[in-house]
């Protein structure tokens, strides 16, 4: 039964040493460790929380960026379409303008040509007139070389006038 009866000497030493262990560790041991463990736990929790927030923010930003990209693409295609349309319009306009201008030019050229033609014709007529007068003069001179012939001529002409 001696096992079940606490020995007074050992009891004394146990009290002394356990109290020493208790006070030393409570003062200088555990608080430092538990404080650090607590702080680190808090820090880890906070870090996890902020990481979660950062992830959310990142996802949001990604969403936003894809949105922006999509908008940009849309705008780009719209602008491209507009540009194509505008080009077509310009080309069309240019074409019509060119046609109108061409026709105007053509008409003017025609007028000019007509005018020149008329001029030329008039010129030719005048030339022809002059030539024919000259020729007629030559012919007359040839025919009226002799006085007889001159008289015959005058006679015929007078006849002609009288018969009229």
């Amino acid at each position, binding site marked *: 039964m*001696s096992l079940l009866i606490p020995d007074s000497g*050992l009891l004394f030493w146990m009290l002394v040493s356990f109290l020493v262990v208790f006070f030393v*560790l*409570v003062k*200088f041991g555990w608080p430092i460790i538990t404080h*650090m463990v607590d702080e680190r736990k808090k*820090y880890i929790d906070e870090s996890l929380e902020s990481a979660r927030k950062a992830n959310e923010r990142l996802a949001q930003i990604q969403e936003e960026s894809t949105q922006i990209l999509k908008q940009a693409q849309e705008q780009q295609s719209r602008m491209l379409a507009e540009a194509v349309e505008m080009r077509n319009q310009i080309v069309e306009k240019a074409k019509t303008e060119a046609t109108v201008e061409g026709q105007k030019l053509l008409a003017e050229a025609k007028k000019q040509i007509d005018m020149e033609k008329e001029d030329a014709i008039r010129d030719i007529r005048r030339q022809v007139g002059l030539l024919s007068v000259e020729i007629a003069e030559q012919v007359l001179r040839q025919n009226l070389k002799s006085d007889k012939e001159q008289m015959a001529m005058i006679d015929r002409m007078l006849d002609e006038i009288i018969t009229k």
Partner: protein
Amino acid sequence: MKKQITNKALTLIFSLLVSLCLFAPLQARAEADFNASEMILEHIGDSYEWHFTNIGDTPVAIPLPVIVYSQVRGEWFCFSSSHLEEGEEYQGFRIAREGDYEGKVVETDAQGQEVRPVDISLTKNAVALLINSALLIAIVLGCARWYRNKLVTDASPNGFVGIMEMMVSMVYYDIIKANIPVHVQRYAGYLLCAFFFIFFNNLIGLIPGSANLTGNIAITFVLALCTFLMVNLFGNKEYWKEIFWADVPGWLKPVMAVIEFFGIFTKPVALMIRLFANIMAGHAALLALVSVIFITFSISAVLGTLMTPLTIVFCVFLDCLELLVAFIQAYVFTMLSAVFIGLSVPQHHE
């Protein structure tokens, strides 16, 4: 590389076991008059010298100081226990061989009666207790030192400090914070002390040649007493009301008060007995298994040789089990203390 080392270690352990098996018969033959129960009780109990082994007939032991106050003569005595070897008498003191004070220092009073002086000798257990306490303080303060000049943002500790931190966190969160709703800081220090004190002493106790501290009732008595004080000194009004004026029908109230009042004392007593009995029984079982070698050899050399390897395998198994028990008992003691403390500061009572 690591595997190679493991292999080498295994080979070493195995060859050590084999050589032990071969060596055991030689040793066993030397102890023909082997008494198992005496050996076991000697190992479990306390003594005035730290006895390691016998080489031949020469004991290898460290004599320890005997400190006694003689009530007969009214003065203090302090001398080495080597003076009291083999029943010798020194300055009127001797170690009793039989009777109520068997194995203790006694003196003879005027009537010729054997009486116990006030004995605060540094016995084997007391010395081991002082050494272990100093070691525990050194270890924990060493760990606490690591945290000096460390910021929260620094990396967590590795190696030994890491293990300590893991265990401290386990006790702190799983035992203390999980069971105690308020004033955590007031109790955390004591419960951490209790856990590490018990766990450390359990482990040291498993080393052959060391003292069986947590298997000694004086040690567990003080621990249980501390829990008792922690529970009852800081218990709040609700706690005392539940004990003396429980929420039960009127005629049951006095009965419950008596039961609850005894409960105040049975709880720590259960703590004391549980730890003491578990560790003591573990040591006893281990020693009994070792005794099998010597007993079988005293019957016949063949039987002894056959039984030795088997016994050693069992011993290794039991040692591993005791490692587990060392942790579990420390955990259970701390956990129950925390539960009792938690119950002594109830919060939301309707």
